């Protein structure tokens, strides 16, 4: 039982903390600046902000440094930090039509009004390990930045586009959804408990904080056939949306307080046969998350759609299954908790097992007695 220190737990914890630090820095290389992580580990920062449920690129970068690059751990640190922050107020509804787009693609149409904007994507890059990056120095970066000009038809230039779903909607091809809810009745998952059946805003909020890999696994299970909704990617957008809050003293007016980078996916699915009430229409799955995280936005949109299946039996169609199991902080915490001592419960189980063995022994003896008698 050397595993459980009877005394000295505090010293053990502190020694472990020192060791963690030692393993991070023992290589002797220059310390990583948070700003470097924020700039050059952009997608990891975005992922941590999303799963941490806090739009704070700098804090996410520090969390990544602290977690030595483990995004689940970094998200956990960020969420714990979030618990200490008071709620100042609620923003007004942001219309993503106002997005300043850096990337926008549609798989539904060959050509869409506004055009396809590839933006910063690796989708068509050959995934060859670029060993030149190992030698990259600041002179090369400076030279590249001096040479590089965002192209006039894309890049960082702010512009907005008509939405693909609006075009389908105008033609009456898309099922109608509830009209825009009032801001003060949108439930807040972080302030109110998750109960079932969950409303669509709650589902979307929950998935926005879920772990990317967890959502992807569940969405992928649906794409392969467990509750397949045959999705088509109507539109995928990455860009900045403004955030506004109600004016404190002037009722009805709002104040813009900044902007956040988000990824938005809209998937178009076939009409479900069981849902046919009126004339057939497409149905929609929607996904939105903080930062640039396309896998997560698409997975969310697919799952948003699968969970609308009325009599779904597949995991991806079961809201309880999806929402309870995709949260990375919850799942990782519980998975790790098995490392805690369980010797009291084990002793209790041991007591039962010994009792069962005694009973089985008695039975056997009795059985033998009977045999002898026979």
């Amino acid at each position, binding site marked *: *039982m*050397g595993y*459980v*220190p*009877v*005394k*000295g*737990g*505090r010293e*053990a*914890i502190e020694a472990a903390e020192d060791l963690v630090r030692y393993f991070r820095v023992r290589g002797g290389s220059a310390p990583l600046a948070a700003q470097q992580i924020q700039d050059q580990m952009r997608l990891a920062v975005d992922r941590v902000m999303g799963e941490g449920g806090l739009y704070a690129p700098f804090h996410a970068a520090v969390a990544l440094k602290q977690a030595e690059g483990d995004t689940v751990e970094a998200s*956990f*640190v960020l*969420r*714990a930090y*979030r*618990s*200490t*922050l*008071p*709620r100042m107020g609620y923003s007004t509804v942001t219309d993503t039509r106002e997005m300043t787009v850096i990337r926008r693609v549609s798989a539904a149409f060959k050509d869409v009004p506004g055009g396809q904007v590839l933006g910063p994507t690796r989708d068509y890059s050959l995934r060859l390990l670029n060993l030149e990056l190992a030698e990259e120095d600041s002179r090369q970066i400076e030279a590249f930045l001096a040479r590089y000009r965002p192209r006039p038809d894309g890049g960082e230039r702010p512009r907005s586009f008509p939405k693909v779903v609006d075009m389908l909607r105008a033609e009456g091809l898309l099922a109608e959804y509830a009209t825009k809810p009032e801001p003060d009745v949108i439930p807040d*998952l*972080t*302030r*109110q*408990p*998750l*109960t*079932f*059946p969950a409303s669509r805003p709650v589902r979307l909020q929950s998935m926005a904080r879920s772990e990317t890999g967890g959502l992807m696994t569940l969405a992928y299970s649906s794409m392969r056939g467990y509750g397949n909704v045959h999705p088509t990617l109507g539109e995928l957008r990455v860009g900045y949306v403004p955030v506004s809050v109600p004016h404190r003293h002037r009722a009805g007016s709002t104040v813009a307080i900044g902007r956040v980078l988000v990824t938005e996916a809209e998937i178009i699915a076939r009409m479900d046969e069981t849902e046919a009430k009126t004339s057939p229409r497409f149905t929609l799955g929607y996904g939105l998350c903080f930062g640039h995280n396309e896998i997560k936005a698409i997975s969310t949109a697919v799952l948003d759609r699968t969970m609308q299946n009325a009599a779904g039996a597949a995991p991806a169609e079961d809201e*309880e299954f999806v929402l*309870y199991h995709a949260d990375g*902080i*919850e799942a*990782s*915490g*519980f*998975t*790790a*908790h098995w490392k*805690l*001592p*369980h*010797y*009291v*419960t084990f*002793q*209790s*189980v*041991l*007591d*039962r097992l010994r*009792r*069962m063995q005694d*009973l089985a022994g008695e*039975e056997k003896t009795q059985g033998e007695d009977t045999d002898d008698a026979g």
Partner: protein
Amino acid sequence: MPDKQAVRPGYNFAFLDEQTKKEIRRRILKAVAVPGYQVPFASRELPIAQGWGTGGLQLTLALVGPGDVVKVIDQGSDDVVNAVNIRRLLLQTTGVKTTEDTGAATLIQTRHRIPEERLREEQALVFQVPYPEPLRRVEPSEVKTREMHAEADYSRLWVFLYEDIVRWREITIGAQYPVLVNGRYVMDPSPIPRWDIPKLHMAANLNLFGAGREKRIYAVPPYTRVEPLAFEDHQFRVESFDGKHCAVCGSTASFLDELIDDHTGARRHTCSDVAYCAKRHQLLSENGPGAGRQTGNETGGGA
């Protein structure tokens, strides 16, 4: 008074923001008003991982004030690393006094044990709960178990226990034994050993249960009926330590940990409740043998 030196600057008293505490406090009141019923709550992330006591800790943080004296135990011990860690967080965010003496504590946070020393009216015991739902053994869906509680339909759990007896001639549940609270709700008492279950029945203290990951709060108020599920011909039985005693304090009336000697492989037993054991040991060494004679009244276990 709180130790201001120990408090880490930059955080609110008791870590959580005040709105969060308010929400948890409102839920606690409802949990007390409907004994054994699981109240859903939003649950916040804490600087310790979910599954490591965040439910109990959120309750403690919503309850604790400068006048409290806090004790934290895990597996009955104040010194297991997880208990030390939680106590460290409490100290760094509140500066409140901590103790290992069960009798001196106003608030006790525990994982997997109820102290052997009987608790008093003014004390509150906060349990860390991994699985709040006692029906999860027979039904994985939250929607369905909630309906079963609503209708007080516990037949599937009774069948589960019955089948256990048919198969094994005994109920095989070790720790975390389901109980009926106030004659209405079947409740998971957290993974305490069966030994501790009788201590919940008509206890003088308030018992609060927090499941952070599963986002549930529930309660057993003082002087409330808590009955382990059992059959007339298959009575509920606590763990047997027949013929065994604590190697340190000689106790024959406490829950014992089984230890295996590193060298000889021999087994010996010591009290799981380390603070209780230390108190008895001191009493024995001060007053000689006989001082620690046990009437069996001081613990609910074995009753």
